[in-house]
C-alpha cells in the first residue's frame, strides 16, 4: 500500500518549476479568448421555451435562461476574465470567474436539444486551474510580486498536478469516445462502410459545419483507406490513457489525436477547437524555451 501511495505522490506531486503550467495557462486562455470573443450567447434568451431541454446539471441546479441583457453582461465579464487569466492579472479570481460564469454560459446552448462535445471538458480544466497556482510565473501578478519580493519561485508539486490532471481530463474524453463507438457499434464501426458513409454524408451538409474540403471523397475512393482510418481512430482513442504514463505513447497518441480532430474539421466539418486548445498543457514549455534559448545563442554566435 505504501508503494502505491508513494507512486501516486510521485506522479502528481514531484516538484517542478512553474514554467509549463504558467505558459500553458497563458496560451490556453489566450486561445479561448480568441475563439469565444465573437460568440454571442444572448441569442439563447430569444429562443422559445418549447426548445428548453435542460441538461442534468442545469436541471439539478435549476438554472434558468437569463434575459438577453443579463447574458450580455455575463459574457462581457467572462471574456474580460479570460483575458485577465491569459495575462495573469488577479489570476485566481479571474480563473474562478471563468469557471463559474463559464459553467453557465458554455452549458446553456446544450440545454436546447443537443449536447455538442467540443467544450464540456473546458469546465474541468477551469476547475483545475482555479484550484491551482498558474499565475506564479509569466503573469502580471508575478511581476507585481517580484517588485515586492524578487526571490525566484521555487519548484513545487503545486505546479505538477494541475498539468497532469488536465492530461487526465483529455484521457477521459478520448477513452470515452472510443468505448462509446465500440459499445454502440462494435467492430462494425471499423470493419464496415461506416466511415466511408460518414465522409460522403458530410458533403451533404447535415452537420453543424461545412467540411473545409472535398478530400473526404478522395479518401473514400481508395479501397480500405477509410477502414484503416477508422481502426486508427478507435485504437488511438481507447489507447489514449497510455499517454498518461508512457512517454513513447505520448509522442504518438497526443499529436495523432490532435491530427484526427483537425481531420474532422477538414473532412467532416465539426470543429473541436476549444477542446484542442487543452493540448497546450502537453507541451513541455520549459524544454521549448531552453531550445529557443540555445538556438538564439547559436544565431548570436553566427552573427
Amino acid at each position: 500500500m505504501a508503494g502505491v501511495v508513494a507512486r501516486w505522490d510521485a506522479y502528481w506531486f514531484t516538484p517542478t518549476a512553474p514554467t509549463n503550467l504558467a505558459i500553458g495557462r497563458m496560451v490556453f486562455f489566450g486561445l479561448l479568448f480568441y475563439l469565444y470573443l465573437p460568440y454571442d450567447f444572448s441569442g439563447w434568451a430569444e429562443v422559445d421555451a418549447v426548445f428548453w431541454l435542460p441538461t442534468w446539471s442545469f436541471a439539478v441546479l435549476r438554472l434558468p435562461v437569463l434575459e438577453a441583457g443579463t447574458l450580455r453582461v455575463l459574457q462581457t465579464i467572462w471574456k474580460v476574465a479570460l483575458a485577465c487569466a491569459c495575462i495573469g492579472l488577479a489570476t485566481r479570481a479571474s480563473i474562478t470567474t471563468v469557471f463559474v460564469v463559464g459553467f453557465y454560459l458554455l452549458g446553456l446552448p446544450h440545454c436546447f436539444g443537443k449536447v455538442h462535445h467540443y467544450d464540456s471538458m473546458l469546465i474541468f480544466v477551469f476547475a483545475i486551474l482555479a484550484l491551482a497556482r498558474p499565475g506564479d510565473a509569466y503573469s502580471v501578478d508575478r511581476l507585481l510580486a517580484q517588485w515586492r519580493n524578487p526571490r525566484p519561485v521555487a519548484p513545487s508539486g503545486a505546479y505538477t498536478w494541475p498539468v497532469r490532471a488536465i492530461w487526465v481530463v483529455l484521457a477521459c474524453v478520448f477513452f470515452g469516445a472510443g468505448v462509446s463507438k465500440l459499445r454502440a457499434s462494435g467492430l462494425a464501426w471499423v470493419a464496415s462502410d461506416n466511415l466511408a458513409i460518414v465522409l460522403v454524408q458530410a458533403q451533404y451538409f447535415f452537420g453543424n459545419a461545412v467540411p473545409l474540403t472535398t478530400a473526404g471523397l478522395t479518401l473514400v475512393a481508395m479501397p480500405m483507406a477509410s477502414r484503416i482510418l477508422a481502426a486508427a481512430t478507435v485504437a488511438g482513442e481507447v489507447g489514449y490513457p497510455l499517454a498518461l504514463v508512457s512517454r513513447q505513447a505520448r509522442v504518438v497518441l497526443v499529436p495523432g489525436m490532435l491530427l484526427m480532430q483537425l481531420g474532422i474539421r477538414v473532412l467532416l466539418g465539426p470543429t473541436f477547437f476549444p477542446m484542442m486548445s487543452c493540448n497546450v498543457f502537453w507541451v513541455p514549455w520549459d524544454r521549448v524555451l531552453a531550445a529557443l534559448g540555445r538556438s538564439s545563442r547559436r544565431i548570436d554566435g553566427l552573427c
Partner: protein
Amino acid sequence: MAVWQRWVVSALIATIVGGHLVDIASGLEHWPFSPYPMYSRAQRDWAPVMAEIVGIRRDGGELALKEPELLAPFDQARLLGALAQLGMRPDGMALVRKALVDCLARYERGRRHGAHDGPLLRALRLYHGRYVLDIAASTVGRPAARTLVLEVTDADTRS
C-alpha cells in the same frame, strides 16, 4: 504541498475520473460529464433519410436553411436534434410545429435586424429526404424521395 492540499487534489481527480467512468459505463450524459458518443453509431445505409429545414420564398422557391446565421443561435445539427427529441414526445407534432414557428419568427427578426441577408420567407417546411449517397457526392441537394412532415407559415407567427 501540505497533506490536506494533496487530499483535496486527489478528491478532485477522483471526482473527474469517477464521473466520467460512470457516464462511460452507463452511456448516459450528465453534462459536463459525458460518454462522448459523437459518431458512435455505425452508419450502414448508403441511402439514409435525413431531416431538412427548408424556407419558402414569396415566389414559392425553396431555400435550404443550412447556414448558421439563418438558424441562429442554433446550428443545423442542434436544431434537427432538438426537433427529433420534441417529435418523440406524446404531443410531438404540436411541439415541433411550435418550434418551427419560433424558427420562422426568429429568421424574420434576424432578417429585419440585418443579422443575415436571407430573403423574406412566407413559410418553413420540415422534410424527410432520402438521399442516395455516391462517392462523387453528385446527389447533393437532390433527394431521391422527399416527404413533407410539417409546414408553418408567416400567419402562424402572428397568431
